[in-house]
Protein backbone atom coordinates (compact mmCIF):
# COMPACT_ATOMS: atom_id res chain seq x y z
CA UNK A 1 0.00 0.00 0.00
CA UNK A 2 1.38 3.37 -0.96
CA UNK A 3 1.95 5.68 1.99
CA UNK A 4 0.64 9.21 2.01
CA UNK A 5 3.38 11.85 2.07
CA UNK A 6 3.93 13.39 5.48
CA UNK A 7 3.72 17.13 5.92
CA UNK A 8 6.63 18.97 7.51
CA UNK A 9 4.53 19.77 10.56
CA UNK A 10 3.58 16.13 11.02
CA UNK A 11 7.15 15.02 10.51
CA UNK A 12 8.41 17.46 13.15
CA UNK A 13 5.68 16.54 15.61
CA UNK A 14 6.34 12.80 15.30
CA UNK A 15 10.08 13.31 15.53
CA UNK A 16 9.56 15.33 18.70
CA UNK A 17 7.61 12.40 20.17
CA UNK A 18 10.32 9.91 19.21
CA UNK A 19 12.97 12.18 20.71
CA UNK A 20 11.14 12.71 23.98
CA UNK A 21 9.21 9.49 24.60
CA UNK A 22 11.00 6.87 22.51
CA UNK A 23 9.84 4.44 19.87
CA UNK A 24 7.12 2.73 21.91
CA UNK A 25 4.06 4.77 21.05
CA UNK A 26 2.18 3.41 24.09
CA UNK A 27 4.44 5.73 26.09
CA UNK A 28 3.42 8.76 24.06
CA UNK A 29 0.82 11.21 25.32
CA UNK A 30 -2.68 10.02 24.39
CA UNK A 31 -3.41 12.85 21.96
CA UNK A 32 -0.10 12.40 20.13
CA UNK A 33 -0.67 8.67 19.96
CA UNK A 34 -4.08 9.16 18.39
CA UNK A 35 -2.93 11.87 16.04
CA UNK A 36 0.42 10.48 14.90
CA UNK A 37 0.24 6.76 15.64
CA UNK A 38 0.04 5.74 12.00
CA UNK A 39 2.51 8.39 10.82
CA UNK A 40 5.07 7.02 13.27
CA UNK A 41 5.31 3.84 11.20
CA UNK A 42 6.10 5.63 7.94
CA UNK A 43 9.32 4.93 6.06
CA UNK A 44 10.34 8.57 6.11
CA UNK A 45 10.78 8.31 9.86
CA UNK A 46 12.53 4.94 9.84
CA UNK A 47 15.93 6.30 10.92
CA UNK A 48 14.50 8.30 13.80
CA UNK A 49 12.42 5.32 14.84
CA UNK A 50 15.39 2.93 14.79
CA UNK A 51 17.51 5.31 16.85
CA UNK A 52 14.74 5.61 19.41
CA UNK A 53 14.24 1.83 19.47
CA UNK A 54 17.93 1.26 20.08
CA UNK A 55 18.01 3.61 23.05
CA UNK A 56 14.78 2.15 24.45
CA UNK A 57 16.35 -1.29 24.21
CA UNK A 58 19.42 -0.22 26.16
CA UNK A 59 17.43 1.57 28.83
CA UNK A 60 15.08 -1.38 29.17
CA UNK A 61 17.99 -3.71 29.71
CA UNK A 62 19.25 -1.80 32.74
CA UNK A 63 17.27 -3.00 35.73
CA UNK A 64 17.98 -1.76 39.24
CA UNK A 65 18.84 -4.31 41.93
CA UNK A 66 15.78 -5.59 43.81
CA UNK A 67 14.76 -4.03 47.10
CA UNK A 68 16.06 -6.02 50.04
CA UNK A 69 13.62 -7.30 52.65
CA UNK A 70 15.91 -5.71 55.19
CA UNK A 71 15.25 -2.24 53.76
CA UNK A 72 11.49 -2.75 54.00
CA UNK A 73 11.86 -3.96 57.58
CA UNK A 74 13.95 -0.93 58.45
CA UNK A 75 11.37 1.40 56.96
CA UNK A 76 8.52 -0.28 58.82
CA UNK A 77 10.54 -0.31 62.05
CA UNK A 78 11.01 3.46 61.91
CA UNK A 79 7.26 4.02 61.73
CA UNK A 80 5.95 5.91 64.74
CA UNK A 81 2.48 7.22 65.24
CA UNK A 82 2.79 10.81 64.02
CA UNK A 83 1.93 13.55 66.48
CA UNK A 84 -1.53 14.89 65.76
CA UNK A 85 -1.37 18.59 65.06
CA UNK A 86 -4.76 20.26 64.99
CA UNK A 87 -5.21 23.26 62.74
CA UNK A 88 -8.09 25.72 63.14
CA UNK A 89 -9.89 24.20 60.18
CA UNK A 90 -9.48 20.73 61.71
CA UNK A 91 -10.82 22.04 64.99
CA UNK A 92 -13.86 23.58 63.30
CA UNK A 93 -14.45 20.50 61.19
CA UNK A 94 -14.19 18.32 64.27
CA UNK A 95 -16.46 20.60 66.24
CA UNK A 96 -19.20 20.41 63.64
CA UNK A 97 -19.06 16.71 62.93
CA UNK A 98 -22.55 15.13 63.12
CA UNK A 99 -21.53 12.66 65.83
CA UNK A 100 -20.93 15.56 68.22
CA UNK A 101 -24.56 16.62 67.85
CA UNK A 102 -26.08 13.25 68.61
CA UNK A 103 -26.21 13.57 72.46
CA UNK A 104 -27.18 17.23 72.27
CA UNK A 105 -29.85 16.45 69.67
CA UNK A 106 -31.23 13.61 71.77
CA UNK A 107 -31.35 15.83 74.85
CA UNK A 108 -33.07 18.63 72.94
CA UNK A 109 -35.53 16.14 71.43
CA UNK A 110 -36.51 14.78 74.85
CA UNK A 111 -36.97 18.34 76.12
CA UNK A 112 -39.17 19.23 73.13
CA UNK A 113 -41.29 16.11 73.63
CA UNK A 114 -41.79 17.02 77.28
CA UNK A 115 -42.84 20.52 76.31
CA UNK A 116 -45.37 19.25 73.76
CA UNK A 117 -46.77 16.74 76.23
CA UNK A 118 -47.13 19.50 78.81
CA UNK A 119 -48.99 21.77 76.40
CA UNK A 120 -51.39 18.97 75.45
CA UNK A 121 -52.15 18.10 79.03
CA UNK A 122 -52.94 21.72 79.84
CA UNK A 123 -55.26 22.00 76.82
CA UNK A 124 -56.98 18.74 77.69
CA UNK A 125 -58.04 19.89 81.16
CA UNK A 126 -61.02 22.33 81.45
CA UNK A 127 -60.24 25.83 82.36
CA UNK A 128 -62.59 26.53 85.34
CA UNK A 129 -64.07 29.81 84.21
CA UNK A 130 -67.25 30.98 86.05
CA UNK A 131 -69.43 29.86 83.11
CA UNK A 132 -68.01 26.38 83.04
CA UNK A 133 -68.39 26.12 86.76
CA UNK A 134 -72.07 27.15 86.50
CA UNK A 135 -72.86 24.59 83.76
CA UNK A 136 -71.14 21.92 85.74
CA UNK A 137 -73.33 22.69 88.72
CA UNK A 138 -76.55 22.60 86.65
CA UNK A 139 -75.77 19.36 84.90
CA UNK A 140 -74.59 17.71 88.08
CA UNK A 141 -77.97 18.41 89.70
CA UNK A 142 -80.04 17.32 86.65
CA UNK A 143 -78.38 13.91 86.54
CA UNK A 144 -77.24 14.41 82.95
CA UNK A 145 -73.65 13.67 82.42
CA UNK A 146 -71.84 15.41 79.65
CA UNK A 147 -69.58 12.37 79.35
CA UNK A 148 -72.50 10.04 78.54
CA UNK A 149 -74.51 12.43 76.34
CA UNK A 150 -75.04 10.88 72.90
CA UNK A 151 -76.11 13.35 70.22
CA UNK A 152 -77.39 10.70 67.80
CA UNK A 153 -79.56 9.13 70.45
CA UNK A 154 -80.91 12.56 71.33
CA UNK A 155 -81.90 13.18 67.71
CA UNK A 156 -83.64 9.82 67.46
CA UNK A 157 -85.56 10.54 70.63
CA UNK A 158 -86.81 13.86 69.14
CA UNK A 159 -88.10 12.08 66.02
CA UNK A 160 -89.93 9.47 68.05
Amino acid at each position, binding site marked *: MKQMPISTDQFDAVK*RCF*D*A*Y*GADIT*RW*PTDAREQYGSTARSDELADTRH*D*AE*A*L*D*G*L*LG*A*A*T*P*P*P*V*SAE*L*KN*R*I*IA*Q*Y*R*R*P*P*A*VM*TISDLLADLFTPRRFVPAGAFAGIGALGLVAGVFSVNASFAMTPEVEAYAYVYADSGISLDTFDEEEAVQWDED
Partner: protein
Amino acid sequence: MGYDNDTDEALVRRAGRGDRSAATALVERHTDKIYACCFRILGGKPAAEDAAQETFLRLWKHAGNWRPKGAKFETWLYRIAMNICFDYLRKTKREAPAEAAPEMIDSADQPDQALFLGQRRFAIDEALGKLPERQRFAITLCHFQEMTNIEAAEVMEISVDALESLLARGRRGLRAQLAPMRDNLMGKMSNETNAHIN
Protein backbone atom coordinates in the same frame (compact mmCIF):
# COMPACT_ATOMS: atom_id res chain seq x y z
CA MET B 1 -6.02 -7.55 57.40
CA GLY B 2 -5.88 -6.96 53.64
CA TYR B 3 -5.48 -3.46 52.29
CA ASP B 4 -5.43 -4.31 48.59
CA ASN B 5 -8.65 -2.45 47.87
CA ASP B 6 -7.80 0.63 49.92
CA THR B 7 -6.62 3.76 48.20
CA ASP B 8 -3.27 5.25 49.10
CA GLU B 9 -5.08 8.23 50.54
CA ALA B 10 -7.10 6.06 52.93
CA LEU B 11 -3.97 4.21 54.00
CA VAL B 12 -2.10 7.45 54.70
CA ARG B 13 -4.94 8.70 56.84
CA ARG B 14 -4.93 5.45 58.82
CA ALA B 15 -1.17 5.48 59.15
CA GLY B 16 -1.52 9.04 60.40
CA ARG B 17 -3.84 7.81 63.14
CA GLY B 18 -1.34 5.21 64.26
CA ASP B 19 -2.43 2.18 62.21
CA ARG B 20 0.83 0.26 61.75
CA SER B 21 -0.64 -2.28 59.34
CA ALA B 22 -1.73 0.57 57.01
CA ALA B 23 1.82 1.90 57.16
CA THR B 24 3.12 -1.56 56.31
CA ALA B 25 0.74 -1.75 53.35
CA LEU B 26 2.09 1.58 52.05
CA VAL B 27 5.64 0.30 52.35
CA GLU B 28 4.78 -2.90 50.48
CA ARG B 29 3.03 -0.91 47.77
CA HIS B 30 5.57 1.84 47.14
CA THR B 31 9.06 0.88 48.32
CA ASP B 32 10.08 -0.88 45.11
CA LYS B 33 9.17 2.08 42.93
CA ILE B 34 10.65 4.72 45.23
CA TYR B 35 13.84 2.74 45.67
CA ALA B 36 14.19 2.17 41.90
CA CYS B 37 13.68 5.88 41.29
CA CYS B 38 16.30 6.83 43.90
CA PHE B 39 18.67 4.25 42.47
CA ARG B 40 18.40 5.79 39.01
CA ILE B 41 19.02 9.26 40.33
CA LEU B 42 21.77 8.48 42.81
CA GLY B 43 23.35 5.55 41.04
CA GLY B 44 24.33 3.52 44.11
CA LYS B 45 22.55 1.02 46.29
CA PRO B 46 23.47 2.43 49.75
CA ALA B 47 22.53 5.96 48.74
CA ALA B 48 19.28 4.77 47.15
CA GLU B 49 18.38 2.81 50.27
CA ASP B 50 19.09 5.80 52.50
CA ALA B 51 17.00 8.04 50.27
CA ALA B 52 14.09 5.59 50.17
CA GLN B 53 14.21 5.26 53.95
CA GLU B 54 14.33 9.03 54.39
CA THR B 55 11.36 9.39 52.03
CA PHE B 56 9.22 7.13 54.20
CA LEU B 57 10.49 8.76 57.38
CA ARG B 58 9.14 12.06 56.08
CA LEU B 59 5.93 10.33 55.09
CA TRP B 60 5.44 9.05 58.65
CA LYS B 61 6.18 12.51 59.98
CA HIS B 62 3.55 14.18 57.82
CA ALA B 63 0.98 11.39 57.56
CA GLY B 64 -1.08 12.82 60.44
CA ASN B 65 -1.59 16.12 58.64
CA TRP B 66 -1.52 14.94 55.05
CA ARG B 67 -4.17 16.50 52.80
CA PRO B 68 -4.48 15.65 49.09
CA LYS B 69 -4.60 19.31 47.91
CA GLY B 70 -5.31 18.15 44.37
CA ALA B 71 -2.24 15.95 43.98
CA LYS B 72 -2.22 12.17 44.11
CA PHE B 73 -0.45 10.59 47.04
CA GLU B 74 2.08 8.94 44.74
CA THR B 75 2.93 12.28 43.11
CA TRP B 76 3.54 13.76 46.54
CA LEU B 77 5.70 10.80 47.57
CA TYR B 78 7.82 11.02 44.42
CA ARG B 79 8.23 14.73 45.00
CA ILE B 80 9.60 14.02 48.48
CA ALA B 81 11.96 11.40 47.04
CA MET B 82 13.07 13.82 44.33
CA ASN B 83 13.86 16.55 46.86
CA ILE B 84 15.79 14.12 49.03
CA CYS B 85 17.80 12.93 46.03
CA PHE B 86 18.55 16.48 44.93
CA ASP B 87 19.64 17.38 48.47
CA TYR B 88 21.84 14.32 48.56
CA LEU B 89 23.41 15.17 45.21
CA ARG B 90 24.07 18.69 46.31
CA LYS B 91 25.81 17.50 49.46
CA THR B 92 27.82 14.69 47.98
CA LYS B 93 29.27 13.77 44.68
CA ARG B 94 27.28 11.19 42.82
CA GLU B 95 28.50 7.73 43.77
CA ALA B 96 30.29 5.83 41.06
CA PRO B 97 27.92 3.19 39.74
CA ALA B 98 30.86 0.76 39.53
CA GLU B 99 29.67 -0.87 42.72
CA ALA B 100 26.42 -1.83 41.06
CA ALA B 101 27.95 -3.79 38.24
CA PRO B 102 29.11 -6.84 40.20
CA GLU B 103 25.58 -7.42 41.52
CA MET B 104 24.56 -8.53 38.07
CA ILE B 105 27.33 -11.10 37.94
CA ASP B 106 25.52 -13.82 39.74
CA SER B 107 25.16 -16.41 37.04
CA ALA B 108 27.99 -18.86 37.54
CA ASP B 109 27.02 -21.11 34.67
CA GLN B 110 26.98 -18.27 32.13
CA PRO B 111 29.93 -16.08 33.09
CA ASP B 112 30.17 -14.36 29.70
CA GLN B 113 26.58 -13.31 29.68
CA ALA B 114 26.68 -12.22 33.30
CA LEU B 115 29.75 -10.15 32.63
CA PHE B 116 28.09 -8.61 29.61
CA LEU B 117 24.95 -7.77 31.58
CA GLY B 118 27.05 -6.17 34.31
CA GLN B 119 29.00 -4.13 31.80
CA ARG B 120 25.90 -3.03 30.01
CA ARG B 121 24.22 -1.88 33.16
CA PHE B 122 27.38 -0.15 34.25
CA ALA B 123 27.56 1.70 30.93
CA ILE B 124 23.93 2.78 31.07
CA ASP B 125 24.09 3.81 34.73
CA GLU B 126 27.23 5.77 34.03
CA ALA B 127 25.63 7.51 31.06
CA LEU B 128 22.57 8.34 33.13
CA GLY B 129 24.79 9.63 35.92
CA LYS B 130 26.47 12.07 33.59
CA LEU B 131 23.20 13.71 32.60
CA PRO B 132 22.14 16.90 34.36
CA GLU B 133 19.96 16.07 37.40
CA ARG B 134 16.68 17.26 35.99
CA GLN B 135 17.11 15.43 32.69
CA ARG B 136 17.96 12.28 34.63
CA PHE B 137 14.92 12.70 36.79
CA ALA B 138 12.63 13.29 33.80
CA ILE B 139 13.89 10.12 32.09
CA THR B 140 13.63 8.15 35.31
CA LEU B 141 10.01 9.15 35.85
CA CYS B 142 8.82 8.75 32.26
CA HIS B 143 10.88 5.84 31.05
CA PHE B 144 11.69 3.74 34.11
CA GLN B 145 8.73 4.58 36.37
CA GLU B 146 6.41 4.64 33.36
CA MET B 147 4.60 7.80 34.40
CA THR B 148 2.61 9.78 31.89
CA ASN B 149 4.01 13.13 30.85
CA ILE B 150 1.36 14.88 32.94
CA GLU B 151 2.17 12.89 36.08
CA ALA B 152 5.91 13.38 35.67
CA ALA B 153 5.46 17.10 35.08
CA GLU B 154 3.37 17.29 38.25
CA VAL B 155 6.05 15.55 40.29
CA MET B 156 8.71 17.88 38.95
CA GLU B 157 6.40 20.90 39.23
CA ILE B 158 7.10 21.97 35.66
CA SER B 159 5.01 22.30 32.51
CA VAL B 160 4.53 19.38 30.12
CA ASP B 161 6.45 21.31 27.45
CA ALA B 162 9.38 21.79 29.81
CA LEU B 163 9.28 18.09 30.66
CA GLU B 164 9.32 17.15 26.97
CA SER B 165 12.30 19.38 26.46
CA LEU B 166 14.16 17.73 29.38
CA LEU B 167 13.30 14.28 28.04
CA ALA B 168 14.47 15.08 24.51
CA ARG B 169 17.73 16.61 25.70
CA GLY B 170 18.28 13.76 28.13
CA ARG B 171 17.75 11.07 25.52
CA ARG B 172 19.98 12.93 23.08
CA GLY B 173 22.68 13.03 25.75
CA LEU B 174 22.34 9.32 26.42
CA ARG B 175 22.51 8.49 22.72
CA ALA B 176 25.67 10.54 22.36
CA GLN B 177 27.31 8.86 25.33
CA LEU B 178 26.29 5.35 24.38
CA ALA B 179 26.96 5.71 20.66
CA PRO B 180 30.55 4.40 20.76
CA MET B 181 29.44 1.17 22.46
CA ARG B 182 25.98 0.98 20.99
CA ASP B 183 26.74 -1.53 18.27
CA ASN B 184 28.52 -3.77 20.70
CA LEU B 185 25.73 -3.56 23.27
CA MET B 186 23.00 -3.84 20.68
CA GLY B 187 24.80 -6.68 18.90
CA LYS B 188 24.94 -8.68 22.10
CA MET B 189 21.32 -7.85 22.79
CA SER B 190 20.39 -9.18 19.37
CA ASN B 191 22.36 -12.35 20.10
CA GLU B 192 20.53 -12.70 23.39
CA THR B 193 17.21 -12.28 21.66
CA ASN B 194 18.13 -14.87 19.07
CA ALA B 195 19.24 -17.24 21.81
CA HIS B 196 15.86 -16.78 23.51
CA ILE B 197 14.03 -17.39 20.26
CA ASN B 198 16.13 -20.47 19.46
